[in-house]
């Protein structure tokens, strides 16, 4: 790194006038222009070191990444019609695909690749007065990218109403568009797979295993076990009038959570031919 005089570590306040300036020698302005809303909410993209080099030229060194800024920026550029949310019930990120007019699931590795591409693009478009090495190496380290994605889970979190009800959004799963008014996977499971059998009992764990297979066979996105346990209890109570008990014997003989008087309609989980 070049030795700097009048060196100063700063978290700059980027004004509207700053955004008019040339972006090539200031990655904070480059990112602020790209994601103005993220800048307004969470400050600049980097902790910056500025100073003059040996011949008196002003230098810019990005020191640390602002995790909050980048997590919010992953939410997408609305001017391009983009939006990314973290759908908590399925612990999955979804992005809005304007060409399909619906949300599609994506992986955290892909989000890391997108973030990485932003940093490379910034490094490529930066002028000679910017220290680009951290943009290309340090900030693209998988640990740093994962930290941003972990924060994005919190900032972009959407609850179960996001894809359900009249106001909900459409989404695509395994090439099929699912309308927001369609029944949720756990509701379909209760309706199609569970039945009242007085002499039977089923644990929440066994129900979840069958539910998971049911989702796989019918190309539905399964909920996490925790979400399944909390959401299915109410649906079972309404459909069969029985609540979760803590004294149902599991396969290992120990008492666990489950339902008495409830069983599977058929031993093997069925394919519904849902479209």
């Amino acid at each position, binding site marked *: 790194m070049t030795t700097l005089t009048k060196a100063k570590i700063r978290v700059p306040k980027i004004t509207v006038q700053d955004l008019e300036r040339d972006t090539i020698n200031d990655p904070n302005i480059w990112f602020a222009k790209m994601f103005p809303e993220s800048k307004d909410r969470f400050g600049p993209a980097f902790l910056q070191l500025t100073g003059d080099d040996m011949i008196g030229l002003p230098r810019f060194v990005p020191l640390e990444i602002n995790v909050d800024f980048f997590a919010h920026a992953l939410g997408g*550029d*609305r*001017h*391009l*019609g*983009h939006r*990314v949310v973290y759908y908590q019930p399925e612990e999955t990120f979804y*992005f*809005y*695909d*304007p*060409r*399909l*007019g619906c949300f*599609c699931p*994506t992986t955290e590795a*892909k*989000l890391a*690749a*997108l973030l990485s*591409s932003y940093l490379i693009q910034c490094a490529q478009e930066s002028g000679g007065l910017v220290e680009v090495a951290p943009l290309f190496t340090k900030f693209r380290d998988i640990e740093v990218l994962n930290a941003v994605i972990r924060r994005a889970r919190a900032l972009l979190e959407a609850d179960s109403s996001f894809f359900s009800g009249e106001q909900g959004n459409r989404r*695509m799963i395994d*090439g099929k568009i699912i309308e927001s008014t369609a029944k949720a996977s756990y509701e379909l499971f209760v309706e199609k797979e569970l039945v009242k059998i007085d002499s039977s009992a089923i644990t929440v764990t066994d129900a979840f295993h069958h539910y998971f297979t049911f989702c796989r066979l019918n190309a539905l996105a399964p909920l996490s076990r925790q979400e399944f346990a909390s959401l299915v209890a109410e649906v079972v109570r309404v459909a069969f009038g029985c609540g979760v008990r803590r004294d149902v014997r599991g396969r290992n003989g120990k008492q666990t959570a489950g339902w008495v008087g409830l069983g599977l309609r058929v031993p093997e989980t069925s394919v519904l031919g849902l479209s």
Partner: protein
Amino acid sequence: MSYHLFDEGVPASEIQKQKRQQVIPQTPHIDILSRFKESERRLKILRTIGTHIDHEPTEEEMKAWLQATQRK
């Protein structure tokens, strides 16, 4: 500069004015196209490889994208 107009006696300033008017209406289209390309560049990273969107964008898809960019 269009020499045939110049040969017909149209003043150079008038020819330049006409050329500017031809170029100006195209500017929004170029801007939209470059934004669309940038949008696709980013979305391609997030998309999975599949048959549902492995074709070039159709006019309807371009319109849908444009509508999405105008949504608040």
